[in-house]
């Protein structure tokens, strides 16, 4: 009677989960078809994807790479029996014009110079971007590179970039000498004054003299020959490199206790952030020459770069200010209690942390700035978008639309996507959190 027949005495062997819960089927039930709503969504999106690919893929796969005009493309496609409104892409235009889309009207025998400039840009950036894998000695090259870059692109006498570099060297030595005699602030003032005197008064004569004695130089290229993706990258790189330090200074100014400095910084930042970039580019193209002393006429690309830099630095300042605000007050107090002065505290304690917090914002500002370089086509510079109109004006390629836009979009996508991935890598690398 006490016999309980259903109590098991030995453990059952483990069994595999049912087929519908594992493998591909299990994954699909979990991720695609859990519930009627999800299943409907899946089927809808699948139909959408299939329709999209069905429309685009046949257009993309079109053997028109060697065509020399739109008419020839249509011939080839008609020969294959493909008729209709959009029988296929005409890739001949890309083969014919990709060099122009990249370099604009830069003299073709001098293409090695921009190529060299951008290869060396990679070398100069490597120690900054991948500091753990590249020897630090290369930083010397990074310091010299800003003088090499414009010389390679615009050409001219080698003495011009050298004398610009000499200004920094002179300023540094004067600073060291004055610093030892009269102390900190006086040293900085003396150094800056010496450099300014060199750049504004002396360097012109020295360059002329050296040119007369030793005329070393490469062929000069006019700014109006610049164009294509090279122009976008040039404007983007220079503006990015200059906007970060200016932005940091503006952010510090905005956070500072000095009322007048703060008011000036807030006014500048809010003004720039309140107007569209295109109006600043109008200022660059029409007004900047009016603001300068009579007779000055400086380069349109330089004017655009100045405006793009000012624009990006206001946004950068807000991003960095966000990082500064996110730091706990204890970090400032801790730095003070160690006896660090303002600049030491900023350099050693505050900035490394604040900049780390603001990396995503900084990089997205960079990406935004790089995308915004396309706006220069509106004031008549020949960036890829401006060139696409010029290419369509050619009777061979009159009527080409999608191929050019697609190619340009691809160029921008690759660069911007790479930048955003790099920022994720950097965030992971610098992450010292404990989560």
């Amino acid at each position, binding site marked *: 009677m006490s016999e309980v027949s259903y109590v098991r005495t030995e453990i059952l062997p483990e069994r595999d989960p049912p087929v519908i819960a594992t493998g591909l089927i299990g994954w699909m039930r979990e*991720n*695609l078809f*859990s519930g009627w709503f*999800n299943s409907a*969504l*899946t089927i809808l*999106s*699948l139909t*959408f*994807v299939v329709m999209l690919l069905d429309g685009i893929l046949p257009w993309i796969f079109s053997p028109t790479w060697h065509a020399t005009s739109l008419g020839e493309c249509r011939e080839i496609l008609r020969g294959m029996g493909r008729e209709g*409104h959009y029988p296929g892409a005409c890739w001949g235009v890309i083969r014919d014009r990709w060099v122009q889309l990249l370099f604009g009207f830069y003299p073709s025998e001098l293409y090695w110079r921009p190529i060299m400039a951008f290869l060396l840009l990679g070398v100069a950036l490597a120690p900054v971007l991948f500091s753990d894998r590249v020897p630090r000695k290369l930083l010397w090259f990074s310091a010299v590179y800003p003088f090499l870059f414009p010389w390679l692109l615009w050409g001219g006498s080698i003495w011009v970039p050298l004398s610009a570099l000499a200004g920094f060297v002179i300023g540094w030595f004067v600073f060291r000498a004055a610093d030892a005699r009269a*102390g900190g*602030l*006086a040293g900085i003032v003396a150094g800056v004054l010496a450099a300014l005197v060199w750049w504004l008064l002396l360097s012109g004569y020295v360059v002329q003299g050296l040119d007369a004695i030793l005329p070393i130089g490469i062929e000069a290229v006019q700014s109006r020959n610049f164009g294509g993706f090279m122009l976008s990258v040039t404007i983007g790189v220079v503006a990015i490199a200059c906007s970060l330090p200016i932005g940091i200074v503006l952010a510090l100014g905005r956070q500072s*206790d*000095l*009322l*007048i*400095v703060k008011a*000036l910084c807030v006014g500048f930042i*809010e*003004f720039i*952030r*309140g*107007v*569209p*970039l*295109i*109006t600043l580019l*109008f*200022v660059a193209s*029409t*007004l900047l*020459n*009016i*603001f*300068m*002393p*009579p007779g000055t006429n400086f380069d349109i690309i330089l004017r655009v770069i100045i405006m793009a830099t000012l624009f990006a630095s206001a946004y950068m300042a807000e991003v960095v200010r966000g990082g500064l605000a996110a730091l706990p007050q204890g970090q400032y107090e801790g730095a003070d209690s160690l006896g660090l002065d303002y600049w030491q505290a900023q350099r050693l304690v505050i900035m490394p942390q604040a900049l780390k917090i603001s990396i995503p914002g900084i990089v997205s500002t960079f*990406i935004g700035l790089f*995308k*915004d*370089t*396309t*706006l220069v*086509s*509106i004031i008549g510079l020949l960036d890829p*978008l401006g060139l696409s109109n010029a290419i369509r004006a050619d009777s061979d390629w009159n009527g080409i*639309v*999608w191929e050019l*836009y697609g190619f*340009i*979009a691809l160029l*921008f*996508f690759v660069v*911007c*996507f790479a930048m*955003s991935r790099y920022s994720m890598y950097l965030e992971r690398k610098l992450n010292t959190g404990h989560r």
Partner: protein
Amino acid sequence: MATVSEPPKEAFRLSQLIYDTRYRSMTIQIVALVAFLILIGWLISNTAQNLADLGKEPSFRFLGESAGYDINQRLIDYNNQDSHMRAAVVGILNTLLVAILGCATATILGVIIGVARLSKNWLVGRLMTIYVEIFRNVPVLLWIVFIMAILIETLPPPNAFRGDDPDATMKLFDTVAITNRGVYIPDPVFGADAKDEKGEFLEEPVGWRVGLGDFPIGASRDNPACESYYATEGPGAGEPAASCGTFQVSLDLLLVLAVLVSGFYASHRIKRRADRIQEATGLRPVTWYLRLGVVVLPFAITLWALGFYFAYPELRGFNFQGGTHMRNSLIALWLALSLYTAAFIAEIVRAGILAISHGQTEAAAALGLRPKRIMNLVILPQALRVIIPPLISMWLNLTKNSSLAIAVGYMDITGTLMGITLNQTGRELETVLLGMLIYLTISLIISAVMNWYNRSVKLVER
């Protein structure tokens, strides 16, 4: 016995201005101010000299001169005899139009995409990621010209709608015509009994539903265009012609808006009353039909009494007539800005939802709330606080990006004041500065309003 030791009194030395922290900040500020003033003075003197050399006195008198160019997409009446000032106002209204349309669409799309990116459905999540990455990493100017090209190249021309067996047909029960010259949508009109089906005034109204008509601000009896407005009989009596007055307000529209607003207010009062009853008794009276009724019924009656009807677009000759014509430039700009900004808003929404810790959901579930109420009462109010500040800056960005209208020929403030007016009058300084000032004002107003709203929903902490 004084225990307080006074610091030794010393004579003020000039070097203290730099080395004494008590004076240094003052020194730095004064130097900064002086440098800034010198810079401004230098710029102004350069500008004055350059303008004098060019023989241009800075003046805004050109704003009163006749503009002499047409604007095809506009919200208020304008013809090429009107002043540059009026052209600029048309431009400002166009900027605001595309900004408001764009912000609304971008926000709706962005929220949907942001939520869909978090979906448990693998395929939907991936598709939305692809969308966001593609739209974020390609310049908005490229999207604008690209969508413009799609509209022009792929849509049917108006003559494809002609014939017994046309290549293209009107959409949505023959009310909307989508052509490569733009989209024609029905035009809401008042005064059904006073007009024939072409929208022309009849000799005699066939009924009493004639509408209230327009009120011209700044009309005068001296203006021949206002003749019909001051007339007491004849077709269209009391209706001002297009060029009468500086600006015409539709009285019908004002009345409808007033009825709608008071309806919403009444509905709000009913809700408050229901809340009070629920507080007192624990039972909530059923009010949805009352609340719906006080909004819809007066609204519908007013519309009917004013003789509201839609004027449908119709193919006449080579083009569509009637209805509202939305040009391709407006549609391309609107679509491109919305799609581009939606990608950014989607990321903001996603980040906002992810920022709410899972414990909140679990705690709400532990209180016995159902999933829908958890979302409405617990997650969304907290997520919104994270979402709103960056959302505001996205709206500001969209408004500023609308200045790219110039690339597709949409006449916003950049196209009118800083475009054609600048080229015709040669007044770079005045037009560009005025344009920047207008954008600055718009931006500051948007951010002031939104910051005020943001403060009102902000969590009050200790």
